[in-house]
C-alpha cells in the first residue's frame, strides 16, 4: 500500500511546472500588495499574450519595503521593484542598480496608484474618533507599526505630522503632537501587516492607522460588521512608486517586457484593477467613475510638506532624528 502511494506522492511533489514561459519577471514588492499584484499579474499576462503572442510568468516577492530594497541591493534578481516609498528605490538607485532619474521615467511620480492613511476603528466607533487630534486623547490606544522598520508606518507618522503642523502652525508643536500620539501606542509592530493582525486578530487597541487599501481589505476579510473605516478630513497622499531595475533587466534581457509590465498600470484596465483592490486610481476618468468608493479627504503630499523623501527620512527617521528623540522620552 505504502509502496504504491509513495511514488505517487513523490511524483506529485516533483512534477514541477512543466510549463515554461517565454519571459519570467520577478517583481519585488512590499507587504500589502499581495492581492493587488495577484490580480494585476494575471491581467497583464493575458493582455501581453494577446498582443505579442508571448507568455509571461511573473514571480512575486513580498516583505517589508525597506528589507525588500536591501535584498535587491544584496543581489535579489528583481526585474521590477514596486515598493512603499520612493526613498527605498532611491536607496537601490544609490548603488547603481536603477537609473538616478527613475522617478521621471513614468508619469505621476512613477506612482500609478495611490492611497492615503485612514483610521480603522471598532464597530460603532466607541471612542468617537473623527480626526487626528482625537488620537492623542487620554485612554485612546493607537496601533501603528514602527517607523524605523516599516514604510507604511512612516506614512502614518508623516500624515500625523502634516496635520499637526498645519493645525498648530509650527514644527515644535507638531513634534509635541506626534510625541503625544506615540505615547498612546501600546505595541509597535515591525510591519504594517503585523499591526493589522494585532488590531484585528488580537483585539488590541481602539484605532489602527492604516493604508486605506489595507483598511478595506481587513474589513473585507473579517466582515463589515466588526470594523468601521473613518477617513480624517485631511491626510497624506501615499504614493507607492514602481521602477524597472535597469541592471538586472538589461542583464536578463527583459527590459522590454518589464517596461510593458509597468506601463500596463497606466491603462484603463490597470487603473480598474487598482480601484478594485481599493487603491486610488490616478486616471481622472476612472477616479470620477469610482468617486463614491473613496472618502473625500484633503490630501497633502510629502514633497509639499516635507520637501521629499530624502529630507523627510533624514530629519525624522535617521539616527538621532526626530522619531528617536520622541521615542526616547
Amino acid at each position: 500500500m505504502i509502496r504504491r502511494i509513495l511514488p505517487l506522492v513523490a511524483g506529485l511533489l516533483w512534477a514541477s511546472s512543466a510549463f515554461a514561459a517565454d519571459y519570467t519577471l520577478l517583481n519585488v514588492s512590499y507587504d500589502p500588495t499581495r492581492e493587488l499584484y495577484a490580480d494585476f499579474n494575471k491581467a497583464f499576462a493575458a493582455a501581453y499574450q494577446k498582443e505579442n503572442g508571448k507568455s509571461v510568468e511573473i514571480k512575486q516577492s513580498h516583505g517589508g519595503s525597506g528589507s525588500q530594497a536591501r535584498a535587491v541591493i544584496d543581489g535579489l534578481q528583481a526585474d521590477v521593484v514596486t515598493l512603499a516609498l520612493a526613498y527605498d528605490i532611491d536607496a537601490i538607485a544609490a548603488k547603481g542598480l536603477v537609473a538616478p532619474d527613475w522617478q521621471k521615467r513614468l508619469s505621476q511620480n512613477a506612482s500609478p496608484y495611490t492611497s492615503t492613511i485612514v483610521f480603522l476603528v471598532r464597530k460603532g466607533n466607541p471612542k468617537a474618533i473623527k480626526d487626528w487630534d482625537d488620537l492623542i486623547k487620554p485612554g485612546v490606544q493607537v496601533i501603528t507599526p514602527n517607523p524605523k522598520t516599516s514604510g507604511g508606518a512612516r506614512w502614518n507618522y508623516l500624515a500625523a505630522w502634516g496635520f499637526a503642523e498645519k493645525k498648530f502652525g509650527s514644527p515644535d508643536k507638531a513634534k509635541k503632537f506626534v510625541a503625544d500620539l506615540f505615547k498612546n501606542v501600546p505595541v509597535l509592530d515591525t510591519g504594517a501587516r503585523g499591526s493589522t493582525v494585532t488590531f484585528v486578530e488580537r483585539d488590541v487597541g481602539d484605532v489602527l492607522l492604516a493604508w486605506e487599501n489595507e483598511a478595506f481589505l481587513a474589513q473585507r476579510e473579517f466582515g463589515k460588521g466588526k470594523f468601521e473605516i473613518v477617513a480624517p478630513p485631511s491626510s497624506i497622499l501615499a504614493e507607492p512608486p514602481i521602477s524597472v531595475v535597469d541592471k538586472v533587466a538589461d542583464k536578463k534581457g527583459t527590459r522590454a517586457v518589464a517596461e510593458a509590465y509597468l506601463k500596463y498600470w497606466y491603462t484603463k484596465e490597470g487603473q480598474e484593477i487598482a480601484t478594485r483592490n481599493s487603491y486610488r486610481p490616478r486616471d481622472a476618468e476612472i477616479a470620477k467613475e469610482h468617486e463614491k468608493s473613496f472618502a473625500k479627504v484633503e490630501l497633502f503630499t510629502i514633497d509639499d510638506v516635507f520637501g521629499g523623501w530624502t529630507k523627510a527620512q533624514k530629519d525624522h527617521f535617521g539616527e538621532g532624528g526626530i522619531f528617536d528623540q520622541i521615542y526616547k522620552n
Partner: protein
Amino acid sequence: MSTQTSFVTPVAPLKPYASTAGAAVSSLSRREARERPRAIASPKDFRTEPGPVRFVIVALAVSFLTIFVVLPLVVVFASALSKGFGAYFAALAEPEALSAIRLTLMVAAISVGLNLLFGVIAAWAIAKFDFPGKTFLVTLIDLPFSVSPVISGLVFVLLFGAQGYWGTWLQAHNIHILFAVPGIALATIFVTFPFVARSLIPLMQEQGTQEEEAAISLGASGLQTFFRVTLPNIKWGLLYGVLLCNARAMGEFGAVSVVSGHIRGETNTMPLLVEILYNEYQFVASFAIASLLAMLALITLVVKTVLERRLDDEGQIPRNDSSDH
C-alpha cells in the same frame, strides 16, 4: 558490546559533554552500572513530601506541559481543520505549498547528507586522534548553536551578497547563491552542523580506540577499520544525530528567512510559507502547512524515543542533549 572497554579509562571528556561518561565505567559491566542508579532512584524512596504537596507539584507540571506543549499542538491542528478536510487538503495541494514542501525536502536532503559526511569525519578526527588545536575545533563545531540564526543568515549575505566579499565576482559570472537554493542550503547546513558531530563525539570517545587498534594490528586498512569497526559501533548514535539534524533543517526559519528572498513558489520553505500565508489572512492554509511541520515534530519525537531505547540497550548513549536547541 564487549566489556573490554570498561577497563580502559576513556579520554577525558570535553567540557560541554561533561561528567557521566567517565563515571559509568568501573569494574562492573556497563549495563549493571547503568541500572544501579536507576534502582536507587525508584520513585517510592523519594516520597518524603506529604500528599498535597506532591499533588500541587504534579498538577503544576502537568498544567505547564498542557499550556505550553499540548495546547499549541491542538490549536495548530484545530485551526488547520477548521474548515474541514476538503479545505485542508486543497490548501496542501496549492502549487505554492507543493513548491515549499519540495524545496524543504530538497534542502533537508542536501544539508543532512553533507552534515552526515562532515559530522562523522569531524567526530572521528576529534574522538580518535590527538592533534594540536583540537579544543578549538570542538568549540568551532558548537559555534552554530551559540550564534543567533539571523546572524548565521546575515553572514552569508555578507559573503555572497552583491555588496559582499565575493559578490562582484559571483555577479560577473552569473552565479546565484543568495536568494536561491544554494544559499538556503548553505544557511541550513550552517545551523544544523553541530547535530551529527555532537551526537557522535562523546560516544566515540567513550568507546576509545582499542577496537580500532586491534583491527589495525590484525591488518585492516584505515577505511576497513572505519566501516567494519567504528561505524557499526556508532550507528544508532549516528541515526540519532541525523534525526535531530533533519528536524532542525526542515524547521529552520531565521537563517533561511534572511537568505531566501521570499520569491513565491520558488524560494519559500515551509516555515517561511507558514508566516506568509498567515500574513495574508489565509489562516487555514497557514495552519495546514504548520500541521505538516508539527507532524514532523511528532514523528521525530517517536523515532527519537525508539532510537534512545536502542542506544540504551547497546550502550550507545549520546551524553549531550542537543535536543534542547
